[in-house]
């Protein structure tokens, strides 16, 4: 069978390093990861808020082979929307502030990002999953994350095929194990 080479993506992550890969927040208002080589400029939201959104995005759709930069790209739209729409800015800032305070009360740590285990963070998100803030975040990720062509090969999806003549000569029936 012709299978996709996911190794390239995986080996790149070898030095991009694993879950956490803690994002830094700069004084100039950016969220960046020196180890993973990406940065997000933040215009309207607090940089801390953006860092929390990135963590929440990973906790909502955790794929361990995806680097943080893909989650950062997926939630960056909320900053762009917030810059034009004060109601959206308030929705996001209030949502993050609320979950930070709930986390502090329940777990005695300094907010959502300080909570060490994904299962504990996900449990905090379950508390708000019917709220507009969570719905906006999760709903945006369905397209914002999974429609990034760069991640498709890591799932073994090849995307467009017509420009390569379809799969008639490229393995549409090459399954040999059943």
């Amino acid at each position, binding site marked *: *069978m*012709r*299978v*996709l080479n996911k190794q390239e993506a995986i080996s790149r992550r070898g030095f991009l390093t694993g879950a956490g890969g803690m994002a830094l927040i700069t004084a100039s208002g950016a969220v960046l990861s020196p180890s993973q080589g990406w940065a997000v400029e933040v215009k309207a939201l607090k940089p801390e808020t953006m860092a929390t959104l990135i963590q929440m995005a990973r*906790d*909502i*759709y*955790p*794929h361990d*082979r995806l680097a943080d930069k893909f989650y950062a790209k997926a939630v960056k739209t909320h900053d762009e929307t917030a810059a034009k729409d004060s109601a959206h800015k308030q929705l996001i800032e209030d949502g993050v502030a609320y979950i930070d305070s709930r986390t502090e009360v329940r777990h005695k740590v300094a907010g959502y990002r300080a909570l060490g285990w*994904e299962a504990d963070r*996900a449990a905090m998100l379950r508390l708000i*999953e019917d709220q507009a803030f969570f719905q906006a975040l*999760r709903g945006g990720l*369905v*397209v914002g*994350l*999974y*429609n990034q062509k760069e991640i*498709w090969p890591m*799932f*073994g*999806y*090849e*995307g*467009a*095929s*017509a*420009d390569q*003549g*379809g*799969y*008639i000569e*490229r*393995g*549409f*029936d*090459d*399954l040999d*194990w*059943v």
Partner: protein
Amino acid sequence: MAAPYELSDDSVVVVIGSGAGGGTLGNELAQKGIDTVILEAGGRHEFTDFINDEWGSFGQLAWLDNRTTSGDWRVSRDFPNLPAWIVKAVGGSTTHWAGASLRFQEHELRVLSEYGAVEGANLLDWPITLADLEPYYDKAEKKMRVTRTHDLPGLPGNNNYKIMEAGAKKLGYKEVHTGRMAINSVDDDRPMCQQSGFCFQGCKFSAKWSTLYTEIPEGEETGKLEVRANAHVLKIEHDDSGKVSGVVYADKDGNQHRQAARAVCVAGNSIESPRMLLNSASSQFPDGLANSSGQVGKNYMRHMTGSVYAVFDKPVNFYRGTTMAGIISDEARNNPKRGFVGGYEMETLALGLPFMAAFLNPGAWGREFTAALDMYDHMAGMWIVGEDMPQESNAISLHDELKDAHGMPIPNVHFTDHPNDVAMRNHAYGQGSAVYDAVGATATYPTPPYPSTHNLGTNRMSAKPEDGVVNKFGQTHDIANLFISDGSQFTTGAAENPTLTIVTLAIRQADYIAEQMSQGAI
């Protein structure tokens, strides 16, 4: 080439919609020398313009005008403004369809007699029999070049099919093959299937039958057919005698025009078609056109559907090749011992990663959900499609407040499963999972119905005028020169994908319209 007709030309037959029903009817009328204008709400995108990208194509082709939903169906919760996944473009949903072309079974045209009365279901026998349709099924299959009919070979099975076939045979299923598909299995003036895997996004090779590059250009070549794209019909007008006389539509700039008509054939799919009739209410027809029965918009059916996706320990790459690459028909018979009437088909299905994320379990999140997606390339999948029960309360109605850009009330789509639908779906989930378990699935996912692709029944055919909207030729009981030419005329849904039967009815209707015109009856 395409004949431009004057707006004031009241000798033309106006067909609203250019999909399986309207596109076919328009060509059939033109071939008979009848002057025909097709008004298509969407734009014209030739097959070379199609986009091999799920969301990109969705933006290009899908009907995205605002609609609302109500009822217990999960689509109303997950996709409240997207009740249906259908197309607004020349070619209609024949650009998007998967190509499965199955004839109805004999008993499916007389289900009230076959099943008996079912509580809560508005069952009715069709006023036509399979024998009435068979000569027209022949014509439709030849026109569409349906595989495994008329000596055409079947398509080769892809990886997704290989898994389903192996599992089906282990379960003892007998009717398992790569389907009767309106997708070329040999080269002719269109190429054979190149297994590109984007059937739903419009076939960039034109291997799959669509009215866009078959019926419509054939009709245009006669000089008797004009296809007016970006012509969104708002209402149908009538004269003092109660005959329809013209159609008001908005062009792409929102300017309104009136096309005069000798007859009007409505083929806007089962949401827009009743909406147009309801929006055309007048002092003479206060409940909408052709609605003396009160059945316009009622009995909305969407087929009992769902999907089963399965994960294996080895790769499948099911996105490669024909989207609907094979079928199991053993469960399509009526066998009430299973706990429900009617039957269902199992047909392979694959989605790309973006749509799998959107439709596998809408609203779900967390590691349970992503664990499934992480095995995307190890997945096989099938769609289950069966007969659902017509219910009068499942209906298209006009929204009380919301209006579209042209000031017309938007449609609301109300749907709740009948208990028979639920029982059938649960059975199908079980059998679909068993197919995959038989060949070593490590996980199976019973996936809820997508926004409707098979929209049926909202202007149904009936022997008696009080039971439905149209007679056995799709002619409205109330208005002789007003016809319904799409799946909204279905009395009941049957287990089979509807397009072949819509095309069959359109060919038959064209003969009838020509006869009525030559007799001066319309």
